């Protein structure tokens, strides 16, 4: 029998970014015994990298804003395949969640009358993002972290979950390995909340850290839960492109919110050239109006640089493909030009975008107050994920909840910037509350020893296999190349079929990789274990993308470049079939209640 430590909780939260921390706090507040698993150290999760802000219709800067406008913006951005219930709850509850953070010590930037300042962002009609310069994620995770350590929550750092267990239909436990000690740890739980973030590491160019290997998506799938909308991956338009070693690191949309503009090598602001029909009435048609918008003129419309991320990313790809890109295969993002408009522009930029200034100075030797940046698209976010109930966040497996990036629904086909941080808070809280309530009705969770032994054996198998030149890193790199080249921003049937074939080959290569060394802090071994998750989500993304024969939001098909009305009526669902194969189905989207439909109509 395998050796492992055992802990038991009412609610086990897997993941300690914004969503996981908020879920843990809420579950503890409702009296649950809570265990919180961090893949890294506490406070290092990916939320820390969020820059721009958290969207909440508080109306502090423009009092025309309210939840109805935010709801309509979110649905428009998501191209109407969102879970409308989530979009409604999110828009209604985000302001309270932000104010709650302030009560826990967060210090947002202020308006002149001392309230929380809000900034412009792509796809949001009014200035809506509560922020702290360009380090909002850090402020948020630190506030939640510092609040959590004074709650009844046991924190398990540097633990990676590799399997979920069930007792009949419902989830009953999780097996993790303790990175520092190389030991296994079994967690029995009455309810489990997945808050594991995204899948960016399946692609070569990404703004995501190593942790983003799709663990939650894959664990849920293998436990029998339904995944939804996996074809919708967001490529953020502005990642660094030079030098090569920093390629993909995020450049916040806040740069454009503060007046930054996109130009091609001819110096042309190409974003004015192709403004989508459904945004035309809201978009400036000249440079002067766009500038006035970024400076808070309520009568001005937003500049085209602040159109949704999917559109901006594709426009950049077009410029590069047609030979108008920058020297290193991107385009130029220029904030320094505002010196024509502002006397103290250097100070202003450093104050508003301190970490961007720092990042370019240190990593690229570029002073963004004086010269343009070179940027290009980078894999940033997955809108798809575990299918959940809009209000409770429970997946299709009883007792298994999901919130934050790992859950699907809120963002539909494309996420608006700033809607992620508020998503974490709103649905982290809901998942925590409902997981605690679910746990109350359950008896002691039971996990079969044989299941645990099998999972441990599986995890240790790479040590028993011969080490070869085809190691875990090589398989991972091959997968990243494949997904980047064949299932990236612009997709085609034949290329994705090739990707599917390659993924199959990589699955068998992955099952042969061997690792050497000890179990304590062995990154080679950990990479070998991540491969299963990465391959599962890559296959799910590719199969869903093949199924959606249209272009919508983050999913663009070269062979089906138009949006199809028919495809707007369902979500694509993936489940594990009885013989382990991936099964797809089309799930019709429930009709929207008339009061919500009326809002959409009114805001058109």
């Amino acid at each position, binding site marked *: 029998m395998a050796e492992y430590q055992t802990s038991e909780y009412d609610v086990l939260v897997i993941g300690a970014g914004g969503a996981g921390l908020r879920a843990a706090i809420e579950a503890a507040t409702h009296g649950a015994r809570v265990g919180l698993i961090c893949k890294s150290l506490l406070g290092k999760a990916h939320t820390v*990298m969020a820059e721009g802000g958290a969207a909440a219709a508080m109306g502090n800067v423009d009092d025309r804003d309210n939840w109805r406008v935010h709801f309509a913006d979110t649905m428009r951005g998501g191209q109407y395949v969102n879970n409308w219930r989530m979009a409604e709850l999110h828009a209604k509850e985000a302001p309270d969640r932000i104010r709650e953070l302030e009560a826990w010590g967060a210090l947002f930037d202020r308006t002149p009358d001392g309230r929380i300042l809000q900034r412009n962002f792509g796809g949001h009609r009014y200035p809506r993002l509560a922020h702290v310069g360009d380090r909002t994620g*850090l402020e948020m995770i*630190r506030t939640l972290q510092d609040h959590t*350590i004074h709650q009844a929550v046991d924190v398990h750092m540097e633990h990676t979950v590799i399997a979920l267990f069930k007792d009949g239909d419902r989830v009953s436990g999780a097996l993790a390995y303790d990175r520092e000690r190389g030991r296994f740890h079994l967690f029995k739980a009455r309810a489990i909340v997945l808050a594991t973030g995204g899948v960016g590491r399946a692609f070569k160019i990404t703004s995501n850290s190593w942790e983003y290997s799709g663990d939650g998506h894959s664990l849920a799938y293998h436990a029998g839960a339904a995944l939804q909308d996996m074809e919708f991956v967001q490529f953020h338009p502005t990642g660094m492109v030079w030098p*090569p070693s*920093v390629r993909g690191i995020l450049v916040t949309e806040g740069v454009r919110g503060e007046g930054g503009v996109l130009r091609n090598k001819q110096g042309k602001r190409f974003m004015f050239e192709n403004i989508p029909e459904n945004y035309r009435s809201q978009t400036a048609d000249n440079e002067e109006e766009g500038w006035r918008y970024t400076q808070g003129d309520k009568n001005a419309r937003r500049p085209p640089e602040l159109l949704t991320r999917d559109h901006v990313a594709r426009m950049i790809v077009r410029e590069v493909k047609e030979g108008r890109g920058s020297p290193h295969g991107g385009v130029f993002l220029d904030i320094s030009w505002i010196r024509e408009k502002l006397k103290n522009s250097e100070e202003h930029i450093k104050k508003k975008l301190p970490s961007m200034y*720092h990042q370019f100075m240190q990593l*690229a030797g570029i002073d963004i107050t004086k010269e343009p940046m070179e940027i290009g698209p980078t894999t940033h976010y997955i809108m798809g994920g575990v299918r959940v109930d809009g209000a409770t966040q429970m997946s299709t497996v009883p007792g298994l909840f999901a919130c934050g990036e790992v859950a699907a629904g809120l963002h539909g086909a494309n996420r608006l910037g700033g809607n992620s941080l508020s998503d974490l808070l709103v649905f982290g809280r809901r998942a925590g509350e409902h997981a605690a309530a679910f746990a109350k009705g359950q008896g002691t969770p039971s996990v079969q020893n044989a299941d645990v032994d099998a999972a441990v054996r599986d995890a240790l198998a790479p040590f028993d296999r011969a080490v070869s030149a085809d*190691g875990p890193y090589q398989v991972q790199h091959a997968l990243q190349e494949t997904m980047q080249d064949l299932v990236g921003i612009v997709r085609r049937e034949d290329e994705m079929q090739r990707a599917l074939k390659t993924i199959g080959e990589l699955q068998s290569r992955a099952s042969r990789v061997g690792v050497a060394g000890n179990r304590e*802090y062995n990154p080679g071994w950990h990479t070998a274990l991540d491969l299963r998750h990465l391959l599962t989500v890559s296959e799910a993304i590719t199969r869903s993308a093949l199924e959606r024969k249209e272009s919508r939001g983050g999913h663009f098909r070269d062979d089906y470049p138009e949006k199809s009305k028919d495809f707007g009526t369902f979500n694509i669902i993936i489940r594990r079939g009885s013989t382990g194969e991936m099964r797809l189905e089309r799930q019709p989207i429930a009709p929207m209640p008339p009061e919500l439909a009326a809002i959409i109509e009114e805001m058109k």
Partner: protein
Amino acid sequence: MTTPPIPASLATAPEPTPLPGRQTRAFDVWRGDASGGKFQRFDTTVAEGMVVLDAIHQIQAEQAPDLAVRWNCKAGKCGSCSAEINGMPKLMCMTRLNELATDKPITVEPMRAFPPVRDLVTDVSVNFRMKKSIRKFQPRPPDAPDGTWRMAQKDVDRVQEFRKCIECFLCQDVCHVLRDHHKHDEFAGPRHFVYAAALEMHPLDVGDRIPELKRQHGIGYCNITKCCTKVCPEHITITDNAIIPLKERVVDEFYDPLGKLVKIFSRRKST
């Protein structure tokens, strides 16, 4: 374990030199665990713009798959990849190779003020325990009927500097009270003084952490050598803006009985 000294020239970095194309550089990487270890030499090909963490990853992928390193964001935002590079406490992800002298191998070793776990990874759990011992945020009652507060940006600015901290613990690594005198249990260290200062100077906070800073957190041990400020990757003026004002508050509270009386008296009058 004996702790190697930090170079005296803490603040000075050599002028960046251009890295002409690809070339091979030698890295001496510390490998071992709690029972001991030694430097191992790796030669690897480096290219323009690479940072130390890139080189470590390349070595990991090509030569030493089990080389342990802790990292996350690779963008200087999470504070995970702290190490000592050529003897200087730095983030590996923000240290470009062209900042480092080319005439000798680049040494990369774990933070020496913390117990080694494996290779470049150290046990930093003491920091999490210490933070928990600091009294939590305690806001005054809301200013507005809707439960919200009003704060001026200029009052927020001061604390926002402290809240930039990414908890890389490089300041703890370089602090001689911890590094040389091992007072981890009786001295909170620069990171936690910054944390305490952020709470003490928070416009809404009404908690009092001064007695604990003196007794439990040993702020008196700090003799203001400012090493912490020099290594902070977020450029927080740790000593001048956080530690010295806290020391002054300790002095006011404990060593100035007359001033204390005046304060109590004026506080009564204002309520």
